[in-house]
């Protein structure tokens, strides 16, 4: 599996994502600057966590105006896999690649801790190596992770099996405890918790490994 990590100004999990990808795939990920117009030939594009453009205006709003977004939208439209983690999820909702929005945490505080989630759906390249209903623990680190969508959209997401991860103990007020969702074509996923930070027991856990293994299996 060939992968690229997009680097926005003030991305801060881009190297974590690249390290996890290299460790899991044995290949270096391409680091793609946000002002580039084109993506290299890759199977997976990762939009990493961080505070792109200082979260000015709204989280992800400025990153969505970056030149590279055109190429990412084209990649997704062709069926290419896109994974948005944390700030990357916010960029994906701002871009319209995923529905809904991520708002200020209901408790108003930045939340930085491991959270336990259930895997709700395994019919995707991202979650195929998990068992349905399995619980996994990933860290979260965000101030704006409160997932919001209108009831119609939420019902659709649930009905179409597009709620991928659900918090067991909701840290941010997200509607229906949603931690991660999938697009209609099932090739774009966004989630607030960080799977790339749990691919090595020495660094606090390995529950994120199966996410990357699933992608490798589906995309190689």
């Amino acid at each position, binding site marked *: 599996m060939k992968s690229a990590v997009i680097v926005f100004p003030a991305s801060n999990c881009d190297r974590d994502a690249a390290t996890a990808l290299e460790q899991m795939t044995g290949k270096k990920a391409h680091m793609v600057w946000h002002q580039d117009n084109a993506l290299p030939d890759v199977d997976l594009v990762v939009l990493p966590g961080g505070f792109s453009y200082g979260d000015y*205006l*709204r989280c992800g*709003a400025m990153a969505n*105006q970056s030149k590279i977004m055109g190429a990412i939208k084209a990649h997704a439209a062709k069926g290419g896999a896109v994974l948005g983690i944390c700030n990357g999820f916010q960029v994906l*909702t*701002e871009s319209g690649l995923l*529905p*809904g*929005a991520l*708002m*200020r*945490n*209901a*408790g*108003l505080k930045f939340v930085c801790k491991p959270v336990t989630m259930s895997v709700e759906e395994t019919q995707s390249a991202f979650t195929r190596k998990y068992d349905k209903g399995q619980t996994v623990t990933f860290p979260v680190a965000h101030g704006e992770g*409160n997932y*919001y*969508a209108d009831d119609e959209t939420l019902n659709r997401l649930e009905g179409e099996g597009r709620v991928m991860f659900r918090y067991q103990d909701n840290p941010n*007020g997200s509607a229906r405890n949603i931690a991660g969702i999938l697009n209609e074509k099932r090739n774009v996923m966004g989630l607030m918790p960080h799977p790339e930070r749990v691919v090595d027991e020495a660094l606090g856990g390995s529950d994120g490994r199966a996410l990357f293994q699933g992608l490798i299996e589906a995309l190689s």
Partner: protein
Amino acid sequence: MKARVFVTLKNGVLDPQGKAIGHALNGLGFASVGEVRQGKVIDLELKETDATKAKTALKDMCEKLLANTVIEKYEIELKS
């Protein structure tokens, strides 16, 4: 021409910041304060003299960037 854009959360979208402000005001003794909703004000200077054209452009700006219409609504005020 100058313009002011107000961006606020749509009705029905929970506003935790507004809620915290309301609680704080109650705590300060402003017992009459009920629900509080907060938002953003964006002031813009436009090189445009035609109000209709300015309004059309501003609406476009709001839809494309200034507001996230999934959760926010906007109002445009022109000042000549």
